[in-house]
């Protein structure tokens, strides 16, 4: 049942490849392969081996090709890797292309009837009678289709030597409490495994062996992590409009809120989640709630960001706290809705007409999605302004290994809010006066029982007392104070992470989900005798480390996932005297950036 191409013999002779390979499962979306892929990934994870999973899916409900990649890596690299060592080619529509894309010596597991061995003779083929085996797994035709996915789990498990006990645990977790489903799926895995043991001769070098590198770790996607961060930040009003890839942020938040924020005795909710009619309304509601004193948020992606422009400018100009999550996808326009990107950076940072600059947080891991969600609510109320949290599809929708999240250590701080007693003490209240010299004024909430507490919020020109004005000096005064406030923020946003390498003349700068690839690329470059220092930006406005870092290196590469080198341009604007030192590595095909791409791009420019 298996054929070995001539060219792959050499690879076998090199010996075993343990805990360092990628498995790609090619299926049709809507076929139920997601559960099988999760089980496969989790089983390896539970063996203590670092893994990462990426779902490459179409903007479609059912019937179009989808690929799930599991990277197994003993060194803990969890970025995307371009090459696949083991292909499970279940989708007849793409099987030929999928096999063609493999490197020589790779492994291909496929249904026997696809006859893929004829296409690539330099690939090791394991051909499996999936239909026959599925017939054994169930009499129900619909179930057979679903269980076919568990058959390949069994086959891969046998070939790679994955602990059966871990598969049992993973299946129990996947189908929580559904005994019948657990039994059916376990049986399918067993059928696959038994068949492989009896019929396949192991000829590939790949195997897993238990490690202890995942103990105490969690697996979570960035959207769930951001939802958790919001939950523990005490969010009270959540408004959203469904959009890929951000929907699961609010959906998972709803689940957590229902579990942890409904009072047992009264059954009353300490939150409100509103599915708005569009993104225009979602941001309007969030602003209204923020103005009235709630910790409010909305979550969206590129097209939603475009729609939120006018209201976000309003929030900046009138100084209303709100948190906006942007789980970036490929634009412009509808773009590639199910592909990843970092191309909303400048549009989010300057969203609105007129002079506008927003604070932007840039989480680089699921743990930071959690932490920075919390930071965002604090900053929004401290600075009384919209705060963007920019993640992306790769971070938001894929599963990542992480250390468990840490419970907040500081109490919630609602910022400069004056009560009736505070107004009495101060003797007066003026909404837009810079009392403390940091550009941040004081506000009151509707319902404050004091004759001087009320003020009128308007998107038109306003003076320090919130009165209408078109006077040139009043406008300049307001805009200068808003700028001062933005400058104050430099000291309060998360600082960059700097890793200096002795004698390195090259600096790398990256942000967000590019971090995984950059960390791995640095090791690859080191092997090629190119030492690099690294600065990871975590927020806009930039913090003090940036200038020092660029000054301290001969030249720097800004690595990012957009066509226009948006971060590079922002850095050049920030450090005009150093602009010539700043180079760019850009990856913008919609797939997550990988280490080899970064390494090659830098080697090319260093030649």
């Amino acid at each position, binding site marked *: 049942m298996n054929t070995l191409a001539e060219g792959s013999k050499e690879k076998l002779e090199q010996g075993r490849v343990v805990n360092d390979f990628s498995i790609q499962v090619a299926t049709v979306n809507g076929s139920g392969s997601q559960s099988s892929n999760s089980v496969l990934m989790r089983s390896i994870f539970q063996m203590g081996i670092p893994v990462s999973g990426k779902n490459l899916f179409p903007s479609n409900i059912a019937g179009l090709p989808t690929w799930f990649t599991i990277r197994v890596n003993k060194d803990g690299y969890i970025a995307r890797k371009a090459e696949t060592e083991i292909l499970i080619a279940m989708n007849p529509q793409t099987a030929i292309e999928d096999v063609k894309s493999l490197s020589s010596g790779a492994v291909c597991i496929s249904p026997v009837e696809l006859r893929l061995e004829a296409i690539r003779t330099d690939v090791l083929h394991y051909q499996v009678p999936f239909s026959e085996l599925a017939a054994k797994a169930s009499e129900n035709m619909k179930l057979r289709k679903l269980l076919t996915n568990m058959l390949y789990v069994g086959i891969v498990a046998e070939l790679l030597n994955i602990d059966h006990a871990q598969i049992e645990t993973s299946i129990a977790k996947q189908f929580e409490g559904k005994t019948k489903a657990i039994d059916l799926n376990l049986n399918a895995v067993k059928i696959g495994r038994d068949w492989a043991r009896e019929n396949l001769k192991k000829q590939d070098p790949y195997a897993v062996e238990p490690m202890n590198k995942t103990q*105490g*770790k*969690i*697996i*979570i996607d960035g959207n769930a992590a951001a939802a958790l961060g919001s*939950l*523990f*930040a*005490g969010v009270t*009003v959540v408004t959203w409009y469904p959009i890929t890839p951000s929907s699961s942020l609010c959906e998972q938040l709803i689940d957590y809120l229902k579990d*942890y*924020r409904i*009072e047992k005795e*009264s*059954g*009353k*909710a*300490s*939150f*409100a989640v*509103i599915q*708005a009619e*569009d993104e*225009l*309304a979602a*941001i*309007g*509601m*969030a*602003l*209204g*709630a*923020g*103005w*009235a*004193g*709630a*910790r*409010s948020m909305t979550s969206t992606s590129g097209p939603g960001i475009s729609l939120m422009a*006018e*209201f976000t400018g*309003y929030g900046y100009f009138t100084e209303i706290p709100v948190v906006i999550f942007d789980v970036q996808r490929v634009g412009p326009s509808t773009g590639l809705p199910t592909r990843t990107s970092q191309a909303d950076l400048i549009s989010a940072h300057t969203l609105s007409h007129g002079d506008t600059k927003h604070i932007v947080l840039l989480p680089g891991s699921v743990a930071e999605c959690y932490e920075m969600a919390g930071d965002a609510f604090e900053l929004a109320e401290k600075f009384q302004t919209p705060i963007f949290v920019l993640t992306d599809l790769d971070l938001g929708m894929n599963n990542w290994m992480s250390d*468990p999240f840490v*419970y*907040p250590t500081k*109490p*919630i701080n609602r910022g400069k809010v004056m009560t009736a007693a505070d107004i009495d003490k101060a003797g007066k209240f003026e909404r837009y006066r810079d009392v403390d010299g940091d550009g941040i004024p004081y506000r*009151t*909430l*509707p*319902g*404050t*029982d004091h004759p001087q*507490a*009320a*003020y*009128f*919020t*308007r*998107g038109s020109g306003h003076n320090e007392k919130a009165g209408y004005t078109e006077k040139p000096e009043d406008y300049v005064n307001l805009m200068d104070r808003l700028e001062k406030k933005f400058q104050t923020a430099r000291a309060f946003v998360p600082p960059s992470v700097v890793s200096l390498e002795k004698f390195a003349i090259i600096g790398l700068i990256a942000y967000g989900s590019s971090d995984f690839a950059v960390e791995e690329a640095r090791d690859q470059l080191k092997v090629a005798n190119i030492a690099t220092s690294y600065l990871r930006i975590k927020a806009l406005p930039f913090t003090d480390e940036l200038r020092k870092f660029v000054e301290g290196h001969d030249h720097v590469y800004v690595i990012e996932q957009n066509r226009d080198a948006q971060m590079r341009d922002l850095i050049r604007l920030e450090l005009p005297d150093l602009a010539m030192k700043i180079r760019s590595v850009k990856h913008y095909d919609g797939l997550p950036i990988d280490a080899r791409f970064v390494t090659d791009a830098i080697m090319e420019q260093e030649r």
Partner: protein
Amino acid sequence: MTAAPPTNRIGLTLNDYKGAPSTLCDGCGHDAITAQIIKAFYELGTEPHMVAKLSGIGCSSKTPAYFLNRSHGFNSVHGRMPSVATGVSMANHTLTMIGVSGDGDTASIGLGQFCHLVRRNVPMIYIIENNGVYGLTKGQFSATADLGSKAKSGVMNELPPIDLCGLAIELGCSFVGRSFAGDPKQLVALLKAAGSHQGTAVIDVISPCVTFNNHEGSTKSYKYAKEMETPLHELGYVPFFEQISVDYEPGSVQEVEMHDGSKIRLKKTDRDYDPTDEINAIVTIKKAHANKEFLTGLLYINENKEDFTTIMNVGDAALATLPESITRPPKSALDEIMAELM
């Protein structure tokens, strides 16, 4: 020595409910409405600090600056006051909310948000100061201008109007009234009743634009509205704190009891209009269009519909000011979640 000015039930004077001086044109219908809003809140004895006043963009949307100086105000962006109001309401449902919009703000750019506000039944008074034109941009037709109405420039309006009351009823609005800026007695009664309503109360007030739409040939002029206004009933409002009983001829008065115990008393005209009959309300509005009638009064009321606060199942206290002990789950919650993810 002058006598102390009269005060209401919470000891405030009418002045305490006023705002900054209006900057609208002399004789603007909107100012007449503002005066009735001030009067209504004064007579109701509402705590001004417990009111939030909101608006969109346009002449009408400027008016919240001209009433209730002691209330927080939110002059938002064009057509999107409904979403802001929805957020404010969720953050603090203990506030009384009044929104002022115009026909451009509500029937054109804000039509979608208006529909969804009504559909959610967000508790608030929603006033449309309807003059059929865009005033701030100098007199373009709005979407409520009647077919065949003539602009100041002489251009005829060739598109049919959107009837915001008919639309509101269609969307399930539980309080729909229409009035005229030149009928203060009816308007103040409607406003007060709207203040007692639990849900969205839409009041479409024909409010002539003296500068751009008050000429011969306009169907939103003072002259036209005065001549054509046909009240559906004589509207009275009896607040819960002032239970007055008056003897009426049996069958001549319909009484609607509101959530807070206040009552709307509708003295019937020869029309015998029942505002609790939804189908009849829709038919009446349709017929009025066909017959070119200008009907005013309480078009529809349903005191049994759940408002958005109830639907959202929030507690008695405002979400905005809940303490950390309620809004941040304990560490044990995070530990539990983390354990599940391992």
